[in-house]
């Protein structure tokens, strides 16, 4: 495809598709950014927990008749609780070690989770249907927008903006941020810092679970669904500025669009373009687009 035969409708379609994927990236990046930004834990298990979210939704439907709408609330809670146990029993004992330890630990946990699920459910994946109320779509003139994709944008934006607002604009958020800066001092004011860390970790992980439920109807629910997307999401967090909540959200949306356009002009590069951006950003602005210089 040459650069001259750009079809304006086609391009608008690609932009919209990019935004849809971007909102998905934003949701996943948000969880990672919260966990890193507030807790300084590099959580490599986030992708596996996203996979777990999709599987819990699928298992719930198969064995308990739990429908999509219930799953949307129940699954993040279940996955969040698993995250809390993980923090309490695995991550806390090494909290004072170098970041590298939590990275290796969570990476190992991710491999164990993925391996266990492959062993139990095989590799080709499970199907999960789009709920009836979100089936179908609308013709926008330049493209057909499936209702479910519009729903993903809506949920992601609401959750992302909500989380950003809580962390940046409320007193709860200020405690969280203070806990990162100086946990000892905050504890002296009577705040239960370890509990706060556990809950924050649980919340960040719950976001992965939510993304898993959202993804289940459109991608195949399979054990390696998380490992594919995790690295991309990490790149997004790095581009946005490690730990910058707003940066992660905006970069997620932006990279979705960049990736979508690449798929249009030069699809072969679509899985690498985000990493090329990451390299450029690291060279020119090492703290990330929205990060503060250390």
């Amino acid at each position, binding site marked *: *495809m040459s650069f001259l035969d750009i*079809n304006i*409708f*086609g391009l608008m*379609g*690609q932009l919209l*598709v*990019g935004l*849809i*994927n971007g909102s998905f990236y934003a949701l996943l990046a948000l969880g990672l950014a919260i966990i890193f930004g507030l807790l300084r834990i590099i959580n490599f298990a986030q992708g596996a927990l996203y996979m777990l979210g999709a599987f819990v939704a699928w298992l719930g439907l198969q064995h308990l008749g739990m429908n999509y709408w219930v799953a949307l609330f129940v699954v993040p809670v279940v996955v969040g609780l698993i995250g809390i146990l993980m923090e309490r029993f695995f991550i806390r004992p090494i909290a004072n070690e170098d970041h590298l330890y939590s990275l290796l630990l969570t990476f190992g946990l991710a491999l164990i989770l993925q*391996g266990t699920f*492959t*062993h139990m459910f*095989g*590799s*080709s*994946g*499970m*199907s999960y*249907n*789009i709920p009836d109320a979100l089936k179908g*779509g609308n013709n926008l003139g330049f*493209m*057909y927008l*499936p209702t*479910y*994709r519009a729903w993903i944008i809506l949920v992601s934006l609401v959750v992302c903006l909500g989380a950003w607002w809580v962390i940046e604009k409320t007193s709860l958020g200020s405690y969280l941020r203070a806990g990162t800066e100086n946990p000892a001092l905050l504890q002296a004011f009577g705040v239960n810092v370890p509990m706060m860390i556990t809950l924050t970790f649980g919340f960040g992980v719950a976001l992965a679970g939510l993304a898993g439920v959202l993804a289940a109807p*459109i*991608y*195949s629910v*399979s054990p*390696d*669904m998380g490992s*594919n*997307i995790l690295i991309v999401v990490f790149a997004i967090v790095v581009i946005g500025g490690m730990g910058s909540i707003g940066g992660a959200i905006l970069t997620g949306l932006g990279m979705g669009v960049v990736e*979508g356009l690449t*798929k*249009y002009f030069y*699809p*072969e590069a*679509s*899985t*690498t373009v985000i990493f090329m951006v990451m390299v450029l950003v690291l060279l020119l602005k090492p703290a990330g687009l929205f990060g503060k210089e250390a």
Partner: protein
Amino acid sequence: MKQVIKTLAAAVTLGSALMAAPSMAGGISDDKVRIGVLADMGGPYGDLCGRNCVAAVEMAVEDFGGKVLGKKIDVLSADDQNKPDFGSAKAREWLESEGVDAINGLVASSVVGAVSQVTRSNEKPTLISGAGSNTFTTKTCSPFNAHWSYDVVALANGTVKPLVDSGKKKWFFITADYSFGHALEKVATGVIESNGGKVVGAARAPLGTNDYSSFVLQAMSSGADVVALANAGKDFVNSLKGAVEFGLSEQATLAGLLVFASDTKAIDPSIIGNMRLTTGFYWDRDDQSREWAKRFVDRTGAVPTMAHAGAYSSTMHYLNAVKEAGTDEGKAVMSKMKELKPNDFFARNATLRSDGRMVHDMYQVRVKTDSERKNDHDLYEIEKVIPGDQAFGAQLPECDFK
């Protein structure tokens, strides 16, 4: 001290190399027939030929009686992780120091390419049950390859030609961007063009792409009659889901070029129902295939793919050839395999050509819709049997190994 260790190591290496040297002059080397199964045990191709390919080979060995010419038959297995270097290193270790006599399984085409060089230099039969590239019997053909279950030529002939003949002339490809996808696209393009059709565009999606919506939009704006999915496994599942979700299936026919039964089972019938595709095996064909499939399902719980059935069939044929040849020596067994006609629940009207292509009946099937399915494994209706000589490509003169 260092010197001592070095010397010791050299001695051990030399010793083991000597010990592993095959006893020539007929008979069974080291009093055992060992079959190594190399496959994807935990990765994306695991369901189509992984642990269950090992199970299929073990079933064949048990059905054969566990012994050939009075010697015990061993089955070894290893995970090739879909990495050519890994697979060929394992194959070398097996053949050169563990007395393995034949290798089966073999899923990722890239791994097979590397392994078949090792087996060629060691003169050991290579039973390719999972992979699809047609190069193993053309560009990189070897006297020791036996390409068993299917190949991209048979898939293209089976799926593409009937569509072009029915008047669907304009084609668009969504292709997995690696050797297998390219080979499939190239072969299919040949079939399209030689039957009066034309390719209006192609999008090369990187392996493991999660979201296909961009590619689907491109396919939609191309105005093609048929959108061919030249990919496999999870790429196929995700691209098909995207195509249906964005309404592509309403304006064009979707053609899956390589679909395993395990993929079909992983997709909701509302999405894949009524799709037509080509396969080398379907369990619910006749009493013989059903009998085998029932035993396979009882053992593994999985729906048998053409790779599983092929792994069983090729093992059985290999063991028959060892028995007839009176030896497990590679060259003698290969020529016996080519002389005998494979005939079992998988291989129908079959013959192993001198280029290593196992020619057998292929099947055009239609995927059943939800209301037609009686159970989880009730996936296809066989619409047409394609005789082997029409399904597979012609033999090249330079690949004539008697």
